[in-house]
């Protein structure tokens, strides 16, 4: 290839530079105007907007370009949603203005003005949005808007289709249920309700556009997984409803799993976020069963809502009184979200280290790093929920990397590598969803002077890895660079043995549930077989959850050499480890 040479470039380079400077000053001036501005082409697709318009529609400019301006305006929280702005623009294409009420008390109103750019063909249009809250009365706004409501709009309201998902909404669904029950009494049916977990936080963090996209995508996935006899609707907010015909009660569980699986199995990347964000939608489900004639649509809905409410309170581990359940769930989610923010803002996730020992001597040969996230108020929160929320909010890349950095930092501070101690680090399956984790891990290890031959990566068996070949490649790369790879929580999943053969690991960590039952002769037989199999396959084995001397002795008898558990030490801070290690033995 050849490079561009300034001397052979266009002769008007000075002119171009002058024009750039002029445009730059104009753009700065437009950004300083308090009104929100937007320029569209002749099809009303956005070509440019200022910062005030970005703030008005809560979305960055890059995600707005090429979008129809009517769609963006329609998302604004107008008090009266019956005004058909698209029709208004069509009736007055060249120039016009309309005042829109945003809030009644205290009054908040927005004036939208538009005009063609004179002389341009086809014409572009400039839209201006001005806060006129202190210039109008409620009565003036109401009288103006009543005139604008068209007959078509009135009809559209009564048909009640969701503009975001294209689905029927709650009133239509209830009418359909009523009609179905009247026509087919005696058939077993169920109403299933699904709520999107942490949806408020997704909206807050990534904007309403991303939230709307997620709802549309969930609707699409549910539709695809639906049987022809079943009906789907958006019941409101982040809630979807499915009215399904059942052959027997057992079928309900299968339908629930199928629909949840259809939504949760694949991450979703919204197109309207400026940065690439990978959301992992999770649904809570509740349902109620009906045989025609025994109940009304409203009582069926109420029963399903109560079932969903119970599930959600269980999921959020709230211990508050029933009457305050919804608020508790929100507070719980907000506390989790604040913990994620707190860690990202402070660039640190607290890490505890648990010793991994040789069973014969009880001497540690390394430590497993365990995240101990805290809220901004210093309250510890369960790590599995912290990680799950990070995934749901599309923050797993940042959180995962921060976890690696925090772990290496603690290990470096403790100078544990100098003593030849190994470091065992847990990686989330979602970190293997895309190529590159091996490179990133090695790069960060080098930054923190973490020797790769002392590093172990623990991977949890999961069925949720989108592309197993990526995971295999990344693990192979890690092992080629000297990193040791263990399959964690072995024995708790559905396909542990498959994983041993499909994923190139150095060994396994046997789950604590097996250790707790090692005193049972039948379980001990399984453990003995595992020990033999691993020895024959050349796999290393670490046994987790060793809590008593009896566990230790039985495991040693079976031929296990390495383990960890409360008998040898709980997860502890670096300070505690340093103190205990400096004490004379």
């Amino acid at each position, binding site marked *: *290839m*050849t*490079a*561009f*040479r300034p001397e*052979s*470039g*266009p002769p008007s*380079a000075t002119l*171009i*530079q002058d*024009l*750039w*400077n*002029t*445009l*730059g*000053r*104009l*753009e*700065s001036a437009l950004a300083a105007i308090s009104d929100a501005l937007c*320029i569209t*082409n002749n099809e009303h*697709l*956005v*070509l*440019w*907007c200022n910062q005030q318009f970005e703030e008005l529609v809560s979305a*960055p*400019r*890059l995600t707005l*370009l*090429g979008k129809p301006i009517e769609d963006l305006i329609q998302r604004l929280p107008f008090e009266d949603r019956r005004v058909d702005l698209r029709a208004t623009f069509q009736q007055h294409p060249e120039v016009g203005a309309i005042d829109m009420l945003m809030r009644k008390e205290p009054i908040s109103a927005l004036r939208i003005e538009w005009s063609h750019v004179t002389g341009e063909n086809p014409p572009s249009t400039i839209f201006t949005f001005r806060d006129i809250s202190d210039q109008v009365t409620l009565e003036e706004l109401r009288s103006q808007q009543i005139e604008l409501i068209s007959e078509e709009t009135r009809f559209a309201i009564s048909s009640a289709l969701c503009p975001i998902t294209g689905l029927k909404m709650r009133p239509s669904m209830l009418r359909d249920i009523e009609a179905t029950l009247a026509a087919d009494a005696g058939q077993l049916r169920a109403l299933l309700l699904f709520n999107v977990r942490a949806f408020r936080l997704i909206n807050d963090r990534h904007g309403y556009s991303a939230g709307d996209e997620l709802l549309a995508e969930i609707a699409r996935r549910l539709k695809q997984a639906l049987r022809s006899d079943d009906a789907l609707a958006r019941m409101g907010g982040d809630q979807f409803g499915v009215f399904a015909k059942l052959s027997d009660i057992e079928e309900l569980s299968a339908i629930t799993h199928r629909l949840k699986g259809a939504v949760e199995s694949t991450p979703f*990347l919204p*197109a309207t*976020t*400026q*940065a*690439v964000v990978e959301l992992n939608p999770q649904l809570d489900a509740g349902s109620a069963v009906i045989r025609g004639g025994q109940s009304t649509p409203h009582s069926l809905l109420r029963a399903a809502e109560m079932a969903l409410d119970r599930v959600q309170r269980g999921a959020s581990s709230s211990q508050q009184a029933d009457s305050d359940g919804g608020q508790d769930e929100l507070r719980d989610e907000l506390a989790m979200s604040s913990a994620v923010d707190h860690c990202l803002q402070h660039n640190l996730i607290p890490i505890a280290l648990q010793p991994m020992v040789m069973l014969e001597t009880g001497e540690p040969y390394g430590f497993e790093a365990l995240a101990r996230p805290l809220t901004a108020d210093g309250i510890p929160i369960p790590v599995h929920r912290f990680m799950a929320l990070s995934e749901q909010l599309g923050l797993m890349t940042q959180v995962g990397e921060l976890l690696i950095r925090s772990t290496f930092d603690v290990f470096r501070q403790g100078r544990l590598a100098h003593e030849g101690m190994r470091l065992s680090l847990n990686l989330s399956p979602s970190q293997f969803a895309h190529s590159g984790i091996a490179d990133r891990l090695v790069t960060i290890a080098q930054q923190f002077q973490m020797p790769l031959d002392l590093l172990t990566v623990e991977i949890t068996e999961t069925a949720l890895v989108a592309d197993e070949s990526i995971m295999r490649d990344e693990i192979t790369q890690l092992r080629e660079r000297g990193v040791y790879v263990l399959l964690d929580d072995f024995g708790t999943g559905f396909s542990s043995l498959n994983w041993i053969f499909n994923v190139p690991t150095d060994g396994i960590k046997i789950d604590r549930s097996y250790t707790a039952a090692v005193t049972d002769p039948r379980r001990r037989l399984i453990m003995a077989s595992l020990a033999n199999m691993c020895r024959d396959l050349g796999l290393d084995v670490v046994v987790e959850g060793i809590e008593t001397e009896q566990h230790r002795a039985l495991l040693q008898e079976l031929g296990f050499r390495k383990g960890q558990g409360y008998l040898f030490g709980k997860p502890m801070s670096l300070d505690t480890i340093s103190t205990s290690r400096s004490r004379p033995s």
Partner: protein
Amino acid sequence: MASNAQPATTANYQSLRDSGLPFIVANRLGMVCEINEAFEAVYGWAHRDLIGESLSLILPEAHKMSHQLAFSRFQLPPTQSAILGHPLRLATRCANGTEIVSEHFIIAEERADEWYFVATLKPLTQAA
């Protein structure tokens, strides 16, 4: 690739260039001054089509005005930009008029008193 006449590259510049991803460099005037073979292969542009031409050739129509204005703002000190230094999802126009949504990572580098805009592009969708 860059000719010997160009100033030495910085570490960031070099790491993007070495990434193996489609790669494009523009100068302060917004003219393309370097692309790599991966860029040609993915987006279909030949070297002769782009070198010395405006960067807006590879932008979808709806992005051009905003790009020109944002680019112009970078000309004024102090230099600041919301698009530099982190991954961005943007559509990229191919030589045949189709568009590919790609993850752009753009940095601005000052080399011998001249600003260069250096980007890698990771295709996320098929051409459409």
